[in-house]
């Protein structure tokens, strides 16, 4: 053996391992690259055979995504020449822009419902997690398990009574209803994650504050909360990503005013079947924020996806 530590892999081993991992990473990222690329293809390039790797970038997909269009005659175009770049793109296919599409609205619904439910579930989750972490709550373990078990039900099974409940309360297809529902679903995650984060803050800080004459509530807001800030922020991002991605409840309980982007994007239809550049453009805008968050969160990722069961 050479002079390396016996547990340290040799440079050759490292090189081979690195090459294999890089190969897997490149293969795995390919579909995502393809989504982004397809968004910038013209409709002809998108469905070309063989699939085009080099293509002239076009914003056609994005224009189709945000607008609805109608067919017009050549005389119409002679009388009303297109003024903006996007009108020119549409005109090249003999169409004019009739108005905005629903994508903007659906995207905003995702934002409203995502942030609303995240705020509520982190707020309630922090309170509950603090209580579970610091006080003797009767039946603590059973309650914690009950909170986790709410995540085991298939969403479709829960959706049957929720559907009936929402219908009789007038909550179907409303922002309030979806925020409430996603808050409840995310509570299990936020309570479990935040309890882990708060458990890690030493009791001594609060005790010192209590001795200094703080009330329990002041100790919580002025001592524990600032210390738990990182944990609360990463919990919030996990809740946001879940609400952002959720599909089953959204497709069953919303149809119009409160519909979020995931059930909407697959329904983007062009003149002949699915308009893939527009779908890809919508998917890109929808997925990019999550990719950025994933990169920011990479140190806490494992903890978040295992409900705090595995901590690095």
């Amino acid at each position, binding site marked *: 053996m050479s002079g390396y530590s016996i547990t340290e892999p040799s440079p050759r081993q490292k090189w081979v*391992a690195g090459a294999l*991992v890089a190969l897997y*990473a490149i293969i795995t990222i390919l579909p995502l690259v393809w989504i982004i690329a397809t968004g910038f293809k013209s409709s002809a390039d998108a469905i070309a055979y063989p699939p085009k790797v080099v293509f002239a970038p076009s914003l056609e997909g994005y224009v189709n995504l945000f607008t609805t269009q109608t067919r017009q005659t050549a005389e119409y175009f002679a009388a009303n020449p297109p003024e903006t770049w996007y009108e020119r793109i549409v005109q090249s296919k003999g169409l004019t822009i009739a108005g905005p599409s629903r994508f903007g609205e659906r995207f905003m619904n995702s934002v409203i419902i995502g942030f609303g439910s995240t705020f509520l579930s982190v707020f309630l989750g922090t309170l509950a997690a603090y*209580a579970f972490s610091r006080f003797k709550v009767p039946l603590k373990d059973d309650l914690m398990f009950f909170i986790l078990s709410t995540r085991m039900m298939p969403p479709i099974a829960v959706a049957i009574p929720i559907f*009936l409940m929402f219908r009789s309360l007038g909550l179907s297809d409303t922002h309030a209803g979806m925020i409430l529902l996603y808050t*409840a679903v995310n509570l299990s995650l936020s309570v479990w994650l935040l309890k882990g984060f708060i458990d890690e803050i030493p009791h001594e800080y609060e005790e010192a504050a209590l001795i200094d004459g703080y009330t329990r509530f002041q100790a919580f807001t002025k001592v524990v909360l600032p210390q738990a800030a990182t944990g609360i922020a990463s919990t919030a991002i996990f809740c946001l990503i879940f609400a952002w*991605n959720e599909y089953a409840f959204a497709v069953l309980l919303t149809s119009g005013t409160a519909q979020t982007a995931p059930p909407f*994007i697959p329904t983007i239809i062009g003149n002949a079947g699915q308009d893939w550049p527009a779908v*890809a453009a919508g998917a890109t805008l929808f997925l990019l924020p999550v990719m950025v968050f994933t990169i920011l969160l990479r140190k806490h990722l494992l903890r978040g996806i295992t409900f705090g069961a595995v901590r690095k």
Partner: protein
Amino acid sequence: MSQSVIARAAEATPPGVARRFRGLSDRAIAWIFVAPTIFLLLAVNIFPLIWTIRLSFTNFRANRPNAEVEWIGLRNYDRILTDSDIWETMQATAHFLCWTIVLQVLIGFSLAWLINRKFKGNDLWTTIIVLPMMLSPAVVGNFWTFLYQPQIGLFNYVVAFFTGADPTSFSMIGSVSLAPWAIIIVDTWMWTPFVMLICLAGLRSIPDSIYEAAECDRASKWRQFWTITLPMTLPFLMLAVLFRGIENFKMFDLVVQLTGGGPGNTTTLTSIDLKREAFEKWRTGYASAYAIILFVTVFGLASIYVKALNKVKER
């Protein structure tokens, strides 16, 4: 301990401070903090669960709210457990579950093992690999139908490029024999990083000193792997399998967008079947019984599994 410190401090503080110190009692704060969470979960989970149980004994149909509802006892349960279509659905689910878990554990563990070689650029590649996991399954699943298209899809093109087959000769989501694999491939693509991350945490938890000791005893690398690496990462692996098992038992969004349950019933997983019964055929009572059966199954299997997991951890 901590209680006594506070108690002693309370005795030592002057009465004016002590009154402020008490404020709300700890008990009161605990209840105020926990109550909203429990209340919301009762309202959105337990109350609906009880309602589902009630509905499961009736022939209620949600699209006919004014029709008379009859109590039909256990007839819904009886019909479900003797229905051959449901057994087909269960088989499709089991096939999907087993293969996704096997593939994800094998690939995920191998990747973690390689990444643990601590080569340069390790963090960058890891971050790239985890990306698919966090994305919306519905949106990504929908786009995969494009990748799977025989004529223009990237997947078929790449497979054809390496195997020499005609890319139009097979349709991953249109063919009865390939569709079950189409959903397994996408799920594996999405969730292998999840297993990988957990395995990586497991591998990193093994102290170097154990390997050094094994090296001194001249244990071969192969033996070290089977007697140190694998047993010590097993609890982590089992946890990963638990998470993937529960998630894939509930699987809905990805597969609905990919195949919609077809062709025929080949990829109709239980959640998709349940959705059809409840929200397309509107057999609410029947679907409620179905939901209860699924819940009992997943809850039962998970509890047995957790017991096994705890035994492995204790070893």
